[in-house]
């Protein structure tokens, strides 16, 4: 874990309300693993006070890491106005990354909206022949052009709620379709997105007894395990009643979480 002022290399809109920012930090970049995040201080002012968590969505040239963010409130609105020449204090990489050590299995990466961020990083380091990215959005204007983070469109399936691009419907429809026709062994699932989507993916995984890891979001104050603010209810399998998203997660096996309490 490193805390430093990082130069912004670029910060550009790549989809509606969605920005890709590259930050220069050889130290964080070399440590970063897919699923990990950084805590970004968006302003020197005490309002907004707390750092904002963002998943690392990829690296670039060995000395930069990237974040992909959607503008939803005051902090991200400040971020969008930052640019080359500005520096941001970043703390990271933080949290437990995706575990994709099991080889030879196909992975489905299931993304809902901006939840694609950590999965882009994951897709980038996986064998392209062994992973498939399923991404759902509200509408085509929101679709993140994956080539901007160096991925190919090849193993990518898109769904939009309004049908303006790809499948008309939600991303779990796509997953359902893929799993339905899947014959080459047991695939592994990796998912990130809004809670209803994660619940659906988890339900499907439990049903089919598939391994599934999800990246979850909560409000965070410290991001490093000191404040206990980021608790999520653990499943009865765990020894503790609550897990810390910033330290035990943000990536969890679906078996570690109490899905009823989420």
């Amino acid at each position: 874990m490193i805390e430093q002022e990082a130069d912004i290399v670029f910060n550009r809109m790549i989809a509606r309300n969605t920005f890709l920012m590259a930050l220069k930090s050889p130290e964080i970049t070399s440590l970063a693993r897919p699923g990990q995040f950084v805590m970004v201080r968006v302003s020197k002012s005490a309002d907004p006070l707390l750092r904002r968590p963002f998943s690392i969505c990829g690296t670039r040239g060995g000395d930069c890491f990237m974040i992909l963010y959607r503008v939803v409130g005051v902090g991200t609105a400040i971020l969008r106005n930052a640019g080359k020449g500005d520096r941001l204090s970043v703390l990271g990489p933080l949290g437990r990354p995706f575990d994709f050590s099991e080889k030879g299995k196909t992975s489905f990466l299931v993304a809902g909206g901006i939840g694609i961020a950590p999965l882009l990083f994951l897709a980038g380091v996986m064998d392209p022949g062994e992973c498939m990215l399923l991404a759902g959005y509200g509408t085509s204007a929101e679709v993140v052009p994956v080539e901007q983070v160096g991925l190919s469109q090849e193993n990518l399936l898109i769904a939009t709620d309004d049908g303006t691009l790809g499948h008309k419907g939600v991303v779990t429809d796509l997953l359902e379709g893929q799993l339905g026709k899947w014959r080459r062994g047991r695939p592994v699932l990796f998912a990130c997105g809004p809670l209803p989507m994660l619940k659906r993916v988890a339900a499907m995984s439990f049903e089919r007894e598939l391994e599934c890891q999800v990246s979850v979001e909560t409000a965070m104050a410290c991001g490093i395990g000191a404040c206990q603010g980021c608790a999520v209810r653990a499943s009865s399998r765990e020894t503790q009643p609550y897990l810390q998203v910033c330290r035990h997660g943000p990536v969890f096996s679906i078996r570690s979480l109490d899905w009823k309490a989420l």
Partner: protein
Amino acid sequence: MTGDRPDLTVNIGSIELNNPVLAASGTFGYGEQYAEVVDLSRLGGIVVKGLSLRPRPGNPPPRIVETPCGMLNAIGLANMGLEEFLNEKLPWLRKLDTVVIVNIYGHNVEEYGMVAEGLRGAEGISALEVNVSCPNVEQGGMAFGTDPDASARVTEQVLKKADKPVIVKLTPNVTDIRSVAQAVERAGAHGISLINTLSGMAIDVEKRVPRLANVSGGLSGPAIRPVALYMVYQVVRAVNLPVIGVGGIMNYRDALEFLIAGARAVQVGTANFVNPSTMLEIIEGLERFCRAQGIIDINEIIGSLKED
């Protein structure tokens, strides 16, 4: 001490601190996480997360929410309990070259005493800090710390059982902080720290629900600094005990306000989340300030407020 390096050493009763900057309880864990980015040996000390007799899971989430220049937390004093602390955390803490203070609490007077007793003989602990802000189950849920008598009873009980100096940490949610401080002084406390968080609340207007599962929480951060400073100012003038100032300190100038008002030391809480290097920057800032003002001993600053 080299010629031009000011002496930042302060004393809280019998405890000597290398400098007056401590980590506040609940905001620094047991120091482990921050050890990666902060040289802990340079701190005045660490007050560890509130410790109870038995492990406590804490409150259901959401537990925190940001507010203007502050945050509300309703962690619910989640902690591992006395036994695991002694076995798992203390050995590591002991190796640190810094003062360790253990923040303790109980749900009744007895329980406070039992935690203090459990820490008897434990090496590597410089003092206990007694958190009297948790609900007093014996008296209908108001915090012990809102009642001078209850605060005094807790203090006496802890003193009876403890073999270490006892600092009592006061809650600001009271009409007259001085009367609580004086009661704690009469009960024999060795020091007082203040303030704990102010009670507050936030509502999600779309969903029309409280933003914290616990409904209310404790407000911390720069928003509360003026309140904390005024309470420290009042308590310093009402008791003869050393006072530790806490609340909204973000930089060395904030820390100076508390020292000038008469605090012997300060604690940094929420600021650690914003900038993990805050405490080190404060220590450096205090050194610079002393040097610039020709002050060789930080104690010259403490309580140096001019009033007419």
